[in-house]
C-alpha cells in the first residue's frame, strides 16, 4: 500500500508541477532561514562565551570563605581594603602541591594553574597605580592566559625579578620593556622589578591592573611563603564545568569550588533569552511553511476529487487514500528540506566570505552544527507530513458514488 500511495502521490504532484515547485521553494526558503539563523545564533553565542571565558579560568579551587578576585575583571576586590573597609586576613591553600599533582592527572581538566595573588602599588618616578599581582608558573598560566601569544612588546619571561605588565598599565606609567619599577605592598614591603614584556589580554581592566610575576617571588612579596591563593582550572568543554566542579567537590571537600557560570549569570540569562527568541522565530517560520503546504494540499484534494473517487470506487481503502496525501506531504518535505539544507549551507558560506572580506568587522565565525541541522531537517519533514493530515482527512470523507453520479 505504501508503494501504491507513493506512486500516486508522486504522479499527483508532478501533474501539478508549478504548484509543487512553489511549495518546495517555500519549504526551501523556510528551512534555509532556520539553518542560517540557528547557526548564526550559536556562532554568536560561542563567540561571546569564548570572549568571556576563553582566557579566564573555568573552575577555581579556593579556600573556604574567599571571594576569588580573578573573576572580578574590573578593578578587583582586593583593592577595596585600600579604599575603605578593614583589611581581612586572607585565607590560603597551604598544601597545594598534592592537589596540583592530582589535578594534572585528571583527563577532564585541560590545565590547572596555581596562583598567588594580592594587591600592591606600582611606582615609577612620581607616577603611582594600584595593581593586582599574579604570581604564577608561566608554563601553566600560559595555557590559560596565552601570555606568549599575547605579548606585544618585549619577551614573555617572569623568572627572578622579571614581570609582565598590561598594555594600559604600560602606557599609563610610560613603561617600556627593560624599565625598572618598584612595587609597594600595603604591608610596607617593597621590591624592584624589571618589565620584561607587555601583554594585551584584550580587556581594558585587566590590561591596566594585572602584573604577572613568578610564583615564588609573589609568595615572598605577599608574605605567603609556601602557600598559594587559589588554583585556576580550564577545561575543554566550557559547559561541562558544573559536572566537573561537582566531581572536584567530592574529591576536595575542604575547599570552595566555583565555576564561571556562578560569576556570569547575567551573560547566561542573556544567552538564554537570545536562544528563546531565535526558537520563536524558527517556530513561526516553520508554522508559516506548514500552513503553506497544508493549503496547497487542501486545494489539491478538490482538484483531484474525480481521481480520488475512482480510486475509492475500484477499491482503495480510506487508509490508502489518506496515505496518498501524507506521502505528498512527505515528498514535498523531503525535497524542500534537503534543498533548504543546501541553500542554508550556501547562505552560511556567503556569510563567512562577507565576514572575511569585512576585515575583522564581523569578528565571529558561524559553523554548521550537524545535530541542529539534522534536528531542523527532521522537524520540517515531520511538519510537512502533519500539514497533510487535514487534506488526508478530507480525502477520506469523499464518497465515491457522489463523484460517479455527478460525472
Amino acid at each position: 500500500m505504501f508503494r501504491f500511495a507513493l506512486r500516486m502521490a508522486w504522479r499527483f504532484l508532478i501533474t501539478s508541477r508549478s504548484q509543487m515547485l512553489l511549495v518546495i521553494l517555500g519549504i526551501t526558503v523556510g528551512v534555509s532561514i532556520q539553518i542560517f539563523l540557528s547557526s548564526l545564533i550559536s556562532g554568536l553565542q560561542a563567540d561571546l562565551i569564548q570572549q568571556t571565558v576563553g582566557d579566564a579560568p573555568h573552575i577555581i579551587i579556593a579556600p573556604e570563605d574567599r571571594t576569588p578576585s580573578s573573576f572580578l575583571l574590573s578593578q578587583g576586590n582586593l583593592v577595596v581594603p585600600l579604599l575603605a573597609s578593614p583589611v581581612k586576613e586572607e585565607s590560603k591553600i597551604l598544601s597545594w602541591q598534592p592537589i596540583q599533582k592530582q589535578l594534572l592527572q585528571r583527563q577532564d581538566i585541560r590545565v590547572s594553574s596555581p596562583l598567588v595573588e594580592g594587591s600592591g602599588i606600582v611606582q615609577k618616578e612620581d607616577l603611582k597605580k594600584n595593581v593586582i599581582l599574579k604570581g604564577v608558573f608561566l608554563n601553566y598560566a600560559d595555557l590559560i592566559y596565552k601570555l606568549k601569544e599575547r605579548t606585544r612588546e618585549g619577551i614573555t619571561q617572569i623568572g627572578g625579578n622579571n614581570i609582565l605588565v598590561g598594555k594600559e598599565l604600560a602606557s599609563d606609567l610610560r613603561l617600556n620593556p627593560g624599565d625598572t619599577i618598584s612595587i609597594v605592598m600595603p604591608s610596607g614591603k617593597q621590591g624592584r622589578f624589571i618589565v620584561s614584556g607587555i601583554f594585551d589580554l584584550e580587556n581594558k581592566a585587566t590590561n591596566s591592573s594585572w602584573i604577572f610575576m613568578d610564583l615564588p617571588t609573589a609568595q615572598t612579596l605577599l608574605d605567603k611563603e609556601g602557600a598559594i591563593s587559589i588554583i585556576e582550572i580550564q577545561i575543554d568543554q566550557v559547559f561541562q564545568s558544573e559536572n566537573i566542579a561537582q566531581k572536584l567537590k567530592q574529591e576536595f571537600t575542604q575547599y570552595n569550588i566555583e565555576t564561571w557560570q556562578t560569576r556570569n549569570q547575567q551573560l547566561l540569562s542573556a544567552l538564554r533569552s537570545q536562544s528563546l527568541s531565535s526558537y520563536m522565530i524558527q517556530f513561526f517560520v516553520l508554522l508559516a511553511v506548514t500552513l503553506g503546504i497544508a493549503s496547497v494540499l487542501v486545494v489539491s484534494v478538490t482538484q483531484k476529487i474525480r481521481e480520488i473517487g475512482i480510486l475509492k470506487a475500484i477499491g482503495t481503502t480510506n487508509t490508502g487514500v489518506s496515505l496518498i496525501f501524507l506521502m505528498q506531504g512527505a515528498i514535498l518535505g523531503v525535497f524542500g528540506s534537503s534543498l533548504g539544507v543546501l541553500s542554508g549551507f550556501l547562505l552560511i558560506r556567503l556569510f563567512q566570505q562577507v565576514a572575511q572580506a569585512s576585515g575583522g568587522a564581523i569578528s565571529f565565525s558561524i559553523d554548521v552544527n550537524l545535530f541542529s541541522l539534522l534536528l531542523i531537517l527532521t522537524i520540517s519533514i515531520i511538519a510537512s507530513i502533519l500539514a497533510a493530515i487535514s487534506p488526508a482527512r478530507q480525502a477520506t470523507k469523499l464518497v465515491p458514488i457522489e463523484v460517479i453520479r455527478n460525472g
Partner: protein
Amino acid sequence: MDNLPLIELSKVNKIYGKLVKSQILFDITMTVPSGQFLVLIGPSGSGKSTLLNIIGALDRPTTGEVFIQGKNLGKFSDEELARFRNQFIGFIFQFHYLLPEFNALENVLVSYWIHSLKPSKEILERAMYLLEQVGLKDSVRKRINLLSGGQQQRVAIARALLNSPQLILADEPTGALDTKTGEQVLELLAQIRQESKMTMIMVTHNREVALRADRIIELIDGKLCKEVYPKTVGLHETIKILESHSCNLEDAESSLS
C-alpha cells in the same frame, strides 16, 4: 454450496435525505445466480444506478441485507468493503473514469497496485493481454487524454477485468459513446462474458442490448416491476412483456395498486 446464488438481496430499502426523506428503493428482494447476464432497465430516476451501487458494495442499503457468495456485506467495515470491491468486482461506468495522470497500461494496472506490494511479471503480461484484447495494443503507453472516448471506455473495461473479478457491474457502459463505438464495446463485453463465464449486471436504456441478456429486470419507481428470461420465452414474448403496461412481479403489483 453449488446452488447458493452469487448475489442475494433481502428487503433492500434505500432512503436519501435526513430532513426530507425520499425513498429510492422499496423492499428489493432478488437473487442472481453465478454466470448470469442480467440487464436492468427502467425509466430515468427509477433507481437502477442506486441498486447497482448497492450490489457493488459502493453504497449501503438503508435497511435490508446484501449477501454475496453467502457473505453479509452489512457486516463488512468500510475498509473490508473497499478490499472486497477491488478483488471481487469489476466496475464499468458510463463515463470512463480513468486517471489522467497515467497512461493506458498504468490505468489498467491501478486495480492491482491498490492492494499489492509488487507488480509481478504475470500481472504485467495480463494487463498487456487485456489491452490487446480490447484492441489497444498500439496505445498501451499513450496518455489517457490522447485516446478517443471509445478507446478510453475499453481501457476501463481492461482495468475492470485485471483482477479476474467474479462480478462485472456496468452502468450504461455505452451511454457516452456514439452508436458505432458503443456497439463495438458491447460486442467486446459479450465476447469477454462468453470466454470467462463471469456474472454481469448491466444497466442500459438500449432495448437491443437487453434482448441479448439471460434475464431482464425492469425497475419502476424503485420497485421490481417486470422480469423476463428472453432465452426461455423467446424474442416475441419478451418484447410483448416489456411493452405491456402492467408488472409481472407480484409484490410490485400489489404495492403499485
